[in-house]
């Protein structure tokens, strides 16, 4: 597997690549903010490292606060919202579509 993003330079080794993260989040970041954001991000990650100090040997990962399994519904239709309500808060619409800035090239 080749990696498309540039390797971090030795000076920032281990620091988060905030421009890359911003790109994933579709956020336009002024490159002059990079340093500041990187420092903030680093502090956040440091804070979470506290969790790594806990001993979790033998503890099963828990992803939900309940023990439920297999909560399902029958394949029965409920009424949809209706176009007016669905589109009520759309900043822009064309016919019954949401209209958004042109964005070609998705993920998935």
């Amino acid at each position, binding site marked *: *597997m*080749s*990696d*498309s993003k540039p390797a971090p330079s030795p000076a920032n080794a281990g620091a988060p690549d905030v421009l890359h993260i911003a790109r*994933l*989040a*579709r956020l336009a970041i002024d490159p002059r903010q990079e340093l500041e954001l990187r420092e903030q991000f680093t502090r956040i990650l440091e804070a979470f490292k506290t969790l790594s100090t806990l001993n979790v040997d033998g503890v099963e990962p828990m*992803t*939900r606060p*309940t023990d*439920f*399994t*297999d*909560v*399902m*519904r*029958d*394949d*029965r*239709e*409920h009424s*949809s*919202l*209706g*176009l007016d309500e*669905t*589109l009520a808060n759309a900043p*822009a619409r*064309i*016919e*019954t*579509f*949401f*209209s*958004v*800035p*042109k*964005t*070609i*090239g*998705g*993920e*998935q």
Partner: protein
Amino acid sequence: MSTTNSEIGYVSPKTQVRWIPVIGLEVHCQLKTWTKLFCGCRNEFGATPNSRTCPVCTAQPGALPVLNREALELALRTALALGASVAPTSKFDRKNYFYCDLPKGYQISQFDQPYCTGGGITLESGKRVRLTRIHLEEDAGKAIHDRGDTTLVDLNRAGVPLIESVSEADMQTSQEAFEYLTALKEILQYVGASDCDMEKGSLRCDVNISVRPEGEPWRTKVELKNLNSFRNVQASIEFEIRRQVEAYESGDPAQFPVQETRLFDAEKGVTRSMRRKEDAHDYRYFPEPDLPPITVSAERLDRLRSALPELPTARRARYQKDFGLSAYDAGVLTADRALSEFFETVARLSKLPKEASNWISNELLRNLNDPLLPIRSIDELPFRPHDMSLLLGMLDKGEISGQAGRKVLRAMFETGKSPKDLVASLGLEQVNDSAALDDWCREALVGKDKIIADVRAGKTKAVGALVGPVMKASKGSANPQVVQEILLRLIAEMPS
């Protein structure tokens, strides 16, 4: 192109080096449920944009997804039909990315605990293409870019249930990919999981492909998208093999294939770079806390397994063995489950399996494919297997000619009437009455001295040229065999 298909590997026309393509397929298939995967909105193609949406599938704050039982059932049946192992416990994860067709900012999918792994499909050659896994996930909405200055978003598709089957990179030719897809599609349709209509997007295929010189390790793979037919899958693979080989053989590392997604342009038959592939961890998968795990018991699997229909491969073998059909005919008749069931009923009712096979795979399919008729599928036929078997019976007893049979079948498509009624109303009863036939034959012989002379000289086949006019005179109701006999008798009786 033959170098890609006729033997394993692609021999470069420039260097004569044999390159081995390495091909894996990812197939997304929409499940044929009534409602979406996590909400009760109708799963329906072609509805007014955004009319099939609710707080769950438009990601309103606080809305909670609940799994559709039927979607899991269809997914499990597919897994069993493909010989996969179903996990006793599986869970859902969030796959995070930002795009306008994904209102939540993540897709609910399955990451490290898919509901099933393994299984595979055996190709005609006997080669096994292994499945890595199948997982259950929701579809994204639809983004339309070619109407005006903005992108239009329709969320009707957001939340439609999908299963994604990922194959191992076991295929080496475009033909193998085509066979794999065809077999997978048949199975999905047989178990009732999907209608697999590529035009409606209910089956979508992505290709992962790389090439390597024989004996060398795998190289960088490229993902191909925008493949909306099996033929396009084949064509894109063939193009991409040549493109990658040429790129490596240029000797310039800057030209070498990079890990990326390429779109297939069906008009030009080429692939074009769309974007570099982001690393898997960039999706920042984490467990979906809103959905509890799924458990599937061994008893449930046994029950589902015993309820599976006979699968296409088994059915083809049975048709060859029990009905004496050729492998080709058995393949045509089993390609579609409804067609195959229609055939079996007709074969059983008429006790004429060979004739049923011939008439269904030729005449019936010809009419189904005729754009002048509105009927596109077996389910839409206006007549029943019983009517088809009556028609075959009349043909078998010589009550009507083959030509008349074709007319009757056409009229059955048009009117839905019983073949007996149609034979009578169209006046197609086969005329074996020799008085009428004698007259038509005598007329046909008038002025045909050359043919008469040929027949007398021993070239009895020459009389064939006169059978047509007699059939025409009888409006297709004469028995051509009898016509031929009468013509020969009349010639023999003529004074020389």
